[in-house]
């Protein structure tokens, strides 16, 4: 298999094309939402939401088969988003509280799945996703869920950034913190819903966290963070699917697609981290810029 076939030709296959479309759109949205997760330090709460979705997926699957996955996950995710938002605002949240929600909901999900005939197969699909077996009729619901999250965050983006930077100032300026938190947590939940059906509940966190963290390494310009994170997500998703296909078909080594995608996300992050370390090291070796020297000499500047 040629490199061109792996990177481009593979996606002429219908199941690969669907996987690419859903995963790239999801990764772009997750990257944008993930920047806010990074700026607000909501990584652990996002982890709680990914697990809160699990019983919804399990119940949806038990009630409606694969068609029940998205509705079940959406209901569970939105309940989880509201509960976690209220926990945070009531001051009862802590790592312990999130951990309790996380493990409790996860165990409920496992209990529901354990009642099915194909326990291990279904559990694996829910945990690690089924990105290469997305049915044609599931594409539109997954895209719609992703785009709702994008619109919700996009419409409140200025205010979300203001709140992330200075929550007291944002409140004093008249912003409603509860409404903004609900919008952000619901958007995270919707990304988790779409991600849980593609890369699985365990791996979706990477789509949310890694692009935002990568963007922070690449730039300190606020409004560049969002396109950089979206681009990291889109390119990583494309390369992940291509590598998984190339290795599985070309080399005969069967790689799970979702895990391969996430591995590529992490490799891209590692490369950007390495580039950042090299850049910082070179900057330390370079002589101080005249501007820095001049400003340090201004009286009264502390």
């Amino acid at each position, binding site marked *: 298999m040629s490199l061109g076939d792996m990177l481009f030709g593979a996606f002429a296959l219908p199941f690969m094309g669907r996987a690419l479309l859903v995963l790239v759109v999801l990764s772009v949205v997750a990257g944008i939402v993930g920047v806010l997760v990074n700026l607000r330090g909501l990584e652990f709460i996002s982890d709680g939401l990914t697990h809160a979705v699990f019983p919804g997926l399990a119940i949806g699957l038990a009630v409606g088969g694969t068609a029940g996955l998205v509705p079940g996950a959406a209901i569970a995710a939105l309940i989880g988003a509201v509960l976690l938002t209220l926990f945070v605002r009531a001051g009862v949240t802590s790592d312990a509280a999130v951990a309790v929600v996380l493990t409790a909901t996860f165990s409920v999900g496992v209990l529901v799945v354990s009642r099915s005939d194909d326990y291990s197969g279904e559990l694996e699909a829910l945990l690690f996703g089924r990105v290469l077996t997305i049915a044609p009729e599931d594409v539109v619901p997954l895209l719609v869920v992703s785009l709702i999250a994008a619109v919700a965050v996009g*419409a*409140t983006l200025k205010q979300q950034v*203001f709140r992330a*930077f200075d929550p007291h100032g944002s409140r*004093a300026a*008249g*912003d409603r913190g509860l409404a903004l938190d609900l919008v952000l947590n619901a958007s995270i939940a919707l990304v988790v819903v779409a991600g849980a059906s593609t890369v699985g509940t365990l791996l979706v966190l990477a789509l949310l966290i890694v692009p935002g963290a990568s963007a922070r390494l690449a730039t300190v310009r606020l409004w560049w963070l969002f396109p950089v994170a979206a681009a990291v997500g889109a390119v990583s998703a494309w390369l992940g699917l291509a590598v998984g296909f190339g290795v599985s078909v070309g080399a005969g080594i069967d790689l799970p697609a979702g895990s391969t995608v996430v591995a590529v996300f992490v490799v891209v992050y590692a490369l950007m981290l390495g580039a950042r370390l090299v850049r910082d090291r070179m900057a330390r070796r370079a002589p101080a810029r005249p501007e820095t020297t001049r400003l340090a000499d201004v009286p009264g500047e502390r």
Partner: protein
Amino acid sequence: MTDSGPVLVLQDAAFRHPGGAGVTGLRLSVDPGQAVAVIGPNGAGKSTLLRGILGLVPLVEGSMRVGGAEHAADGMIGFLPQSSDLDPDFPISLEQVVMQGRYRRLGFLRWPGRRDRELVRGALETVGLVERARTRFGELSGGQRQRGMLARALASEPALLLLDEPFNGLDQVNRDALIDTIRTLKARGVAIIVSTHDLELARRVCDSVLLVNGSQIGCGPVDDVLTLENIQECFEGVEVEIDEHTVVVPGHEGH
């Protein structure tokens, strides 16, 4: 709001946090271009009063009119909080912080336009930081950050500006810059309420004083209110800075 009417009127007002702490008996009228110093010791209710005017602490007694209405119109009040606990690593430039002052007027869907950028530049010029506009906020000195936050409050084009302990921790250069800014704003017709411990600064820049310690002790022209008797009642046994000297005000006889 009428152009000639007071920007803020409090009549026997009391603001109280849901937890119970508050400040009572407030009678105050602030005209455009007037600066009022709110003076009192720590815990006297100065910040509670400012947050009450903002609508963040409930009004539990009396009445408040802001620009002639019960609630302030969007962007009418600018607020400079006490030195904010902000993440120095947050990837945001000074001009982006100042632009946040425009968000209330822009709403959710509109993005800043030319007029907003001009107002941000004007606010940065007013506080003397236009050359640092593109600097990351966390790289500024403490005094520059404080002036940057003041520029954010100015960018909202407020009719009433609330400054909560703005001189705390500032060196002389930044104190003088802040005082100059307050004078400029007064000349433009902005009403200002500034909470401070610093009686000398109140004399330099404010027209009137509101003395509080849980409740209002006095309100009026600076020299009428900052009498020894009022100061003793307000600051009993507390260190006070008067004319650049720090003294401990003795307790009232028999108080």
